[in-house]
């Protein structure tokens, strides 16, 4: 692992190590174009569409964070709703004190990340399955504590103040931009994390934890950082949630349904890739929108699909795309290219049971 450096080319040795097969600049420009186009949506689409997209942004932010936890660090948290709720309440508390909910978003993210530190100290004592339920218990405990404070709505919650002077159309647009900004920053942070040193450790844990430990990777430390980042990300998503719903209700923001949604979207899209949660969120939104009139059915179907995919297509839908086309939207790995070889080979075999690729 450490022998692979960032050096883009070493022609004398007869092989080259690169981040991507294609020019990264093009993917960067394409991503920028997508963001710019999406940022202009409030000017030419209906408010109904942007509010659906805000929901998609929230799910995508949470799913990307859950992917970092489960897909890379091997931490299955069933209590991420703790941070969603905390983010929503940070925004509410600041709004009560006269700070604009939009300005409160960064504070909500940082606040949730800071709270994640003592929580990590508690739950990191337990392994895998018990870690999962312990995070759930923590989320329930935090909700019970917050319900004790009647000044922030107690058990019933309260509407979010601070929107008195806003024009409804402008408010919808601002909410949309806030959601877009949170999502773009989330994806950027994850991309940068995975390209850096921490990313190498995380990818090593994802592929083989024991081997990662024995190679001297600081597994515990990496896991803690991921837990903090995921806390902050889910906090930001919770803040956007509070703004988009204009109210904060403890049983709604601390619902385990958030973890179900982020987890299922990630699993369906594909664990352990940045692209997976994006594809998964798209599938999730389509299902949710088409089945919206059938109450709980979308969660039942989503759960069944997630179970089937977890058992029979471990790398999710993106894994199926990847095994056919061999593409990366976010190049975070390395490619080893021998001289005269057109397509190149990956320097690290990503998965043990990888199906034979076409044309590679």
């Amino acid at each position: 692992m450490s022998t692979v450096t960032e050096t883009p080319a070493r022609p004398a040795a007869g092989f080259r190590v690169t981040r991507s097969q294609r020019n990264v600049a093009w993917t960067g420009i394409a991503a920028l174009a997508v963001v710019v186009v999406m940022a202009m949506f409030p000017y030419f689409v209906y408010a109904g569409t942007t509010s659906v997209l805000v929901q998609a942004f929230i799910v995508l932010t949470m799913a990307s964070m859950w992917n970092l936890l489960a897909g890379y660090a091997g931490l299955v948290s069933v209590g991420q709703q703790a941070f969603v709720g905390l983010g929503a309440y940070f925004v509410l508390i600041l709004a009560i004190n006269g700070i604009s909910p939009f300005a409160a978003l960064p504070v909500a993210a940082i606040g949730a990340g800071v709270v994640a530190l003592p929580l990590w100290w508690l739950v990191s004592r337990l392994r895998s399955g018990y870690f999962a339920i312990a995070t759930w218990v923590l989320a329930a405990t935090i909700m019970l504590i917050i319900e004790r404070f009647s000044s922030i709505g107690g058990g019933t919650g309260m509407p979010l103040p601070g929107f008195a002077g806003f024009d409804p159309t402008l408010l919808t647009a601002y909410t949309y931009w806030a959601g877009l900004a949170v999502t773009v920053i989330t994806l950027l942070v994850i991309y940068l994390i995975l390209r850096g040193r921490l990313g190498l450790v995380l990818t090593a844990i994802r592929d083989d934890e024991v081997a990662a430990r024995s190679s001297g990777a600081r597994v515990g430390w990496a896991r803690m950082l991921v837990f903090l980042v995921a806390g902050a990300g889910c906090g930001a998503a919770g803040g956007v949630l509070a703004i988009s719903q204009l109210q904060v209700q403890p049983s709604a923001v601390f619902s385990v349904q958030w973890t179900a949604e982020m987890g299922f979207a990630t699993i369906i899209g594909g664990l352990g890739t940045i692209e997976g949660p994006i594809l998964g969120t798209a599938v999730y939104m389509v299902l949710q929108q088409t089945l919206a009139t059938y109450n709980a059915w979308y969660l039942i179907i989503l759960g069944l699909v997630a179970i089937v995919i977890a058992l029979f297509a471990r790398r999710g839908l993106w894994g199926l795309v990847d095994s056919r086309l061999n593409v990366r939207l976010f190049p975070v790995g390395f490619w080893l290219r021998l001289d005269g070889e057109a397509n190149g080979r990956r320097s690290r075999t990503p998965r043990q049971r990888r199906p034979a690729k076409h044309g590679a």
Partner: protein
Amino acid sequence: MAWVNAIIQGVLTGGLYALFACGLSLMFGVMKVVNLAHGDLAVVAGYIAIGVITVTHIPTLWSFLIVVPVMAAIGYALQRTLIQASLDRGVLTTLIVTFGLSVVIENALLQFFTANSRGIGVGLPLVTESFSIGSGIQIAYLLVVIFAVAVVVLSGLQYFLSRSKYGRLIRAAADDQEAVQLSGADYRHVFGICAALAFGTVALGGIAYGMYSQLSPTTGTDTILLFAFAAVVIGGLGSLWGTLLGGVVLGVAQQIGAQVNISYELLAGYFVFLAVLVLRPQGLTYRRAQS
């Protein structure tokens, strides 16, 4: 006197929590499966009991004669299919699959049986009546029965696992699947039997909770699973008698919390859980994890 009463009530509800917890503990101890759908399956058992009682008109108490075998069969089938398949693919998959199962069951119950809560045996003398010791201590017959059932189930399981021939096989399969397979026993079948046992206790827990309180689709996760887990952690992972102690400690903490202020009931229980996690993460009764 009120405090003595709270402690007695807490000890008795601890029996109920131990009944929730022993299935979770058993499945973790033997298969290393943390079944996140544990609580929802208890609710399913309770709903089956309600259905059986309305259809066949058998006495409420005897409904367990039908529900326990049904749940045991479901447990065996689930273990041999879904859970074994996910076990073969690793811990992560097991968690994802059981969590998926939990969400699917909960929402299916919501969809088909609405969010209304239902009780089992509402109005029965056993459920409503109580006896009093001195002044101010009222003990419900039902809680005494549930506590006794919990003790019988736990000692039965303990005896079965440590003394019987099949129990020895289960312990062997828990220690080393391949070695058991080589000795001529199919470890998958052994795991299936173990899951059937665990689901049998889940059924008893679901019926008991339905009589003690009310069942609704969300009871499975926000009450049964979390209480069961707290009891397991407080008592010590993988120890059967530990789960009884854990259940009792959780129950007493909740009742004392409720005595201070009724809204502190759940918080007090979780705080004890967190305190144990901080001070004694191996649980109150730590021994080398036994099957």
